[in-house]
């Protein structure tokens, strides 16, 4: 009955073909990039004007209907998993680049514009949009902002939060608000930062002004092979302490190298235990000198082989292997589970060693792809979902990797977001008081808790239940809560 009345109200707001409610039409929306979790929504709404979004959210607010916003659905943490009693709000029709202003180095875009499409459109001015998540060919800017997406160039050029200037959002009450401004700052609290990475919990983004950068005059990439992961890690620290900030600094371990090489023939050395890819960009003089210095450092810290890409083709080949690493690893195994922890870089050897021990303990292989410059690990756990219990073992293994990241001073997520996937590990990362603060922030925007409910921030009760299973150092986390 509720579905019928919701449908008829929605159909007053949207044309018939913009409201999907038959099971076969809902199926494509049942999951995002984390396909292990699936759930059909009650209904899918496909608005194409800001006014329609406002009306839909007002309706949800009036009828207490949960609403989950979705861009391209490439997220890896289940952030866009539909709510069984709710509306799945697709922003896919908001796919227009409204304007590019080369003097201001900004672009005004709708949320459904693909990440890569911005750089493609800006290239006629010699400009580009810097954050480049691996999914950039498909993922949309609205989702990038909701997740504060990163990419391989974060260390030098920052995350999404550093590269946006203004957003327009619709609140759950249906109000259109502008956060940020035309200048480099805006009055009042930094709500632009608060909304960035808020995983659709505080408002729905309907427009963004992003910053553009001039394309670098020169980009060179160096490939270095090591017979020991620890040596590769040391080399990374020494490049940085030499005063060089590479545009990208990536590490792959033996299993990832093998998989990538078999998949795309990037020319990677197969006998190496680890390879580093170091990209340097900027003006010709600076890059030329930095290439020399980096080569010297790599040699000094025991690289068994150092190759500088001789031309653009070779540079693209070096990167192709890294960018194809996930699907390449996917070929080794029926399924893989991609993790996203961050650590202070100095703990890399210890974390890799302990991960190896866990791999043996769980009987599951792990390939490692690592944004080495900024300490962001992407362990890929290989498993077979058709083997009973293996997904559960994989999730438990993944959870222990994330808890280890927190233990060494890192975080449970560097760029993929918490979503539904890491909601239990939030209880490890934060104390009750901090989680309560997050809920208070949520209440300030969405007191009825209708925007993406159940994601990103766990309830304290959930943490109490989870904590009962995970006792660290003999201490119960969240001891003030009653146990179930």
């Amino acid at each position, binding site marked *: 009955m509720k579905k019928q009345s919701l449908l008829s109200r929605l159909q007053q707001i949207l044309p018939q073909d913009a409201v999907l409610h038959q099971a076969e039409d809902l199926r494509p929306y049942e999951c995002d990039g984390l396909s292990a979790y699936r759930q059909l929504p009650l209904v899918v709404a496909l608005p194409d004007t800001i006014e329609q979004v406002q009306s839909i959210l007002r309706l949800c607010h009036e009828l207490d209907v949960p609403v989950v916003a979705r861009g391209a659905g490439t997220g890896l943490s289940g952030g866009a998993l539909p709510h069984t009693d709710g509306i799945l709000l697709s922003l896919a029709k908001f796919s227009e680049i409204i304007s590019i202003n080369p003097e201001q180095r900004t672009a005004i875009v709708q949320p459904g514009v693909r990440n890569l499409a911005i750089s493609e459109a800006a290239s006629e001015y010699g400009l580009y949009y810097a954050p480049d998540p691996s999914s950039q060919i498909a993922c949309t800017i609205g989702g990038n902002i909701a997740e504060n997406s990163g990419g391989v160039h974060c*260390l030098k050029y920052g995350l999404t939060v550093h590269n946006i200037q203004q957003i327009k959002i619709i609140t759950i009450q249906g109000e259109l608000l502008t956060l940020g401004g035309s200048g480099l700052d805006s009055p*009042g609290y930094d709500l632009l930062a608060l909304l960035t990475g808020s995983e659709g919990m505080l408002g729905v983004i309907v427009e963004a002004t992003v910053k553009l950068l*001039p394309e670098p005059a020169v980009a060179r990439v160096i490939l270095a092979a090591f017979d020991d992961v620890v040596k590769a890690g040391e080399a990374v620290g020494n490049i940085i302490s030499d005063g060089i900030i590479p545009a990208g600094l990536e590490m792959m371990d033996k299993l990832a190298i093998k998989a990538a090489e078999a998949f795309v023939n990037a020319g990677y050395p197969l006998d190496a235990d680890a390879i580093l890819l170091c990209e340097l960009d900027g003006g010709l003089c600076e890059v030329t000198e930095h290439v020399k210095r980096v080569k010297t450092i790599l040699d000094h810290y025991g690289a068994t082989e150092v190759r500088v890409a001789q031309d653009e083709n070779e540079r693209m080949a070096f990167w192709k292997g890294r960018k194809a690493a996930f699907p390449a690893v996917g070929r080794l195994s029926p399924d893989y589970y991609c993790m996203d922890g961050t650590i202070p870089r100095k703990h890399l050897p210890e974390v890799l060693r302990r991960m190896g021990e866990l791999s043996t303990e769980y009987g599951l292989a792990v390939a490692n792809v690592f944004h080495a410059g900024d300490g962001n690990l992407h362990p890929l756990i290989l498993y077979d979902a058709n083997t009973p219990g293996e997904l559960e073992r994989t999730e438990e293994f993944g959870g222990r990797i994330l808890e280890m990241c927190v233990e060494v*001073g890192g975080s449970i997520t*560097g760029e993929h977001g918490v979503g539904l996937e890491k909601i239990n590990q939030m209880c490890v990362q934060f104390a009750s008081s901090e989680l309560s603060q997050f809920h*208070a922030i949520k209440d300030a925007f969405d007191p009825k808790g209708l925007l993406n409910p159940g994601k990103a921030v766990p309830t304290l009760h959930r943490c109490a239940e989870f904590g009962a299973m995970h006792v660290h150092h003999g201490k119960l986390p969240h001891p003030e809560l009653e146990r179930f």
Partner: protein
Amino acid sequence: MPEINGQFSGQDASQALARQIEQAYHNHTVLNITGGGSKAFYGQHTQGEQLDATRHHGIINYQPTELVITARAGTRLSDIEKVLRENRQMLGFEPPGFSPHATLGGTIACNFSGPRRAYRGAARDYVLGSRIITGKGEIQQFGGEVMKNVAGYDVSRLMCGAMGTLGLILDVSLKVIPLPEAERSLLLECSLEQALNYMHRWVQQSLPLSASAYLDGKLYIRLASNEGGIQQAQQIIGGDTIDENFWHLLKEQQLAFFNTEKPLWRLSLASNSPALKLNGETLYEWGGALRWLRSDESADKIRHTVETLGGHAIFFKNNTQQIDPFHELSPGVQALHRQLKNAFDPANILNPVRMYADI
């Protein structure tokens, strides 16, 4: 490079500060948060019991190879900059101090950034994590010491520019960057129109700009790269080499332009906005995106002019008539401010009225 962890002195007053705030929460005592006093002129004055954040000082952790420094809020900015310089690193946002007593906490609470801001980002862009005390006296920690962390809402960045109204900043972790290998400052004489044109053109090219300013027919540009890179860029830009101390005087507002009793306004707007039709003298920074205006024009006229261009105006200094220092917010955004204030400081005891009358 060796780790420096552990060799710093300092004092951890977090428990005492938390107790003072907790007590104030129970007694509804308004607190006036103070640091080195270098920014006391900024915003409205809060009448209340003093909460002295300088008691909590010292660098906690600095590891040059990790590009991260963590320090207590009462640490002097100059002490942080000195330690970084010794390791050939710096704060990328080049914050002004306005006094040798300036502290890290005050700098972050005001989100103050200097000439490098347009090219390397603002204070808020470098904040990786923080520990705060809420208006209920609870110590909470957000973010961390890693470059990437998207767990939970970005409360650390929310504290930047909140002027202590949402929480007392206890400790801050900042990303740091290497010192440039070389820097050169250039001067070109040209009209305002030409200067804005130049700045917009250069910023679209891959040039190593690190600062820009225009005042009285003179365009000032700073380049940061290696020697070869600077020479290459100078061939495109031209101009005469000048002393780099200009940028220090600009940042600290020690240029003659700032020596005035007239109202001083800080205008933030799109870099390619035209010259504004407002009486008074203007100093341009950040490629045109920041404009300092010495003017007797009415606040309404200044604010209206800037607002129509999507920007905002802060009454920065010499505000003798108690005009609202900060730009009015839209009603919806203002309502969110009140609700957020209530979420962090329900008794409204932390620096009330310092920013806006109702938070």
